[in-house]
């Protein structure tokens, strides 16, 4: 009776486990539950192996290696890899550029997250009305998300072009002063945030749309019978039902915005005058332009620690709610 179980098709892992005579093997096969059968399946480690190896090589190893590097004065040219203790960290904490670029990242995150959530919500609510043209609305709002950052920056730097760009042309046609969209230190970050909203809002829009489609229609029907009008239904049914998904979207968006690099690097390269340079670009500049890999790693880890603290603080209470 064990013959059928030690089937010919059993992979090596299975054969191995048979040798170890797992429990529940004797005589109780018909009575055995799914669990015991599953427990007898000991080849799982073969299935997890490729992922585990990849994670080990390309996530775990660089994480530890980077940590080690942050305590050395390693350079991209290959010279110097002595252990210098906390010197890099001490330098990072007293380096005004670290704090300035960190502030730019945070400022960008604030500027982009609010509209990325609010505009997405408005779009989803409007589309969820079921008005004609569903396909067109979805496509126009989501399509920019499919563009790669280089295309987005090409399009928007064309729009923002001084004098001949579309925006400045319109401004002058309306009798307004042309604006230095990407060249004015006080404006550039707003322009970048605007581009980012245009580019990625479609993703949040789809998340909201899916959540809206999940609201049971009976609730609306019941409310209609009770005489609740459209606005009343919006504020008493729809918005409260979206509270959870809004929490998820806000966290995802904050984490995504904190990692900003592409569009800033491509649009302004951190300028004008360093006024938009995010911390990831500072890491890049330190490591790959100034060749200071050790110091760049230390800055990465300071940034990582901040993200981690933020994630944990945000995650722990939401765990409890769930």
């Amino acid at each position, binding site marked *: 009776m064990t013959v*059928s*179980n030690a*089937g010919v098709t*059993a992979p090596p892992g299975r054969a191995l486990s048979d040798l170890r005579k797992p429990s529940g093997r004797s005589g109780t096969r018909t009575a055995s539950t*799914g669990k015991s*059968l*599953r*427990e007898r*399946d*000991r*080849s*799982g480690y*073969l299935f*997890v192996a490729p*992922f*585990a190896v990849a*994670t080990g090589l390309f*996530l*775990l*190893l*660089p994480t530890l290696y*980077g940590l080690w*590097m942050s305590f050395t004065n390693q350079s991209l040219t290959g010279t110097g890899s002595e252990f210098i203790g906390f010197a890099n960290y001490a330098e990072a904490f007293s380096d005004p550029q670290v704090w300035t670029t960190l502030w730019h990242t945070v400022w960008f995150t604030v500027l982009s997250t609010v509209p990325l959530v609010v505009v997405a919500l408005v779009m989803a609510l409007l*589309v969820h*009305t*079921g*008005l004609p*043209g569903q396909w*067109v*609305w*979805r496509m*126009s709002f*989501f*399509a920019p998300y499919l*563009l*790669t*950052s*280089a295309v987005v920056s*090409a*399009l928007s730097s*064309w*729009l923002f072009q001084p004098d*001949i760009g*579309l925006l400045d042309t319109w401004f002058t046609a309306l009798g307004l002063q042309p604006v230095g969209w990407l060249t004015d230190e006080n404006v550039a970050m707003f322009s970048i945030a605007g581009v980012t909203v245009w580019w990625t809002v479609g993703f949040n829009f789809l*998340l909201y749309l899916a959540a809206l489609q999940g609201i049971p229609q009976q609730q609306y*029907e019941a409310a*209609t019978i009770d005489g609740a*009008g*459209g606005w009343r239904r919006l504020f008493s049914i729809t918005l409260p039902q979206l509270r959870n998904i809004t929490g998820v979207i806000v966290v995802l968006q904050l*984490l995504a915005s904190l*990692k900003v*690099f*592409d569009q800033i690097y*491509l649009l302004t390269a951190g300028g004008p005058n360093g006024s938009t340079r995010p911390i*990831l670009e500072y890491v890049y500049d330190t*490591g790959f332009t100034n060749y200071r*890999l050790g110091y760049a*790693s230390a800055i990465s880890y300071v940034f990582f620690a901040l*993200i*981690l603290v933020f994630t944990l603080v945000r995650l722990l209470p939401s765990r409890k709610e769930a």
Partner: protein
Amino acid sequence: MSVAELVADRRTRAQQERAENRALTKLTIGPSPWVRVGALAALVVLAAIWLLPVAWGAVTSFKHEAEAALPASWWPTTGWTLEAYQQVLGNSDLLIWMWNSLVVAGLVTILTVLISAMAAFAFSQTVFKGRGLLQWLTIASIMMPGQILIVPLFRQMQVMGLVDTFAGIVLPQVVAPVMVFILKRFFDAIPSELLDAARIDGAGTWRLFWTIVLPLSRSILVAVAIFVFIGAWNNFLWPFIVTTDPQFMTLPVGLSTVKNAYGVQYAQNMASAMIAALPLLVVFMLFQRRIVQGVATTGMGGQ
């Protein structure tokens, strides 16, 4: 199915959808025509804003270079031309980059989906030593933003001799612990009776995975694949760090170098942007429903 049947099927589905949408309109806005007109107007304005930059870029790409550099006017006065496209396709590595992007994104997608699905299956349907620890590690690694690792990872690629290779671009991108968890959650829902029946019939674990679990999970696998593909196609930072040879650059990286090289060739810039944008836009138009679903199911960690 014959073509006529397919068309008829599409038509009834479209009719159904329209009826559903009408019912939805009644439920969300109610009968007031004014609110309806207002909402429609808001949609039109928003859609116009969202389409405008692309439309303007498209028009510019068909202008003569001399006219593109004049203050913005919509319609070209000196006639439409394919000049910019010819220039871009003839003089730049655009097609090579596009091919590279396709290869890279394709490989990343296949590898990511395969190893994530295998790991998710192991976590969900098998028992092995160290499973708990590995699962915990996977969760923890979700919190690790890859961008933090560019410096050590680049050094590692140098040591491994993978700078300016497809392997160097692709391999670090295949680690997607989030996808493992999305898939695991889905695999958890597969009735264990089904798998047990196959086990009793003597199916090995690999067969279980390949002939039962994967076919049952086609929808979520497609969703994850679409998602991974978009991400890999658009990824800029890592390919930008690990490639210096234009022959190995992906589209986003290559395009960013063109911009600097050509300086003020506006029509050409727009032409290459249009060419670069086309593939995913076509894919989106073809698979709109799937992509919308895919974002919904994978986007928030499968909630």
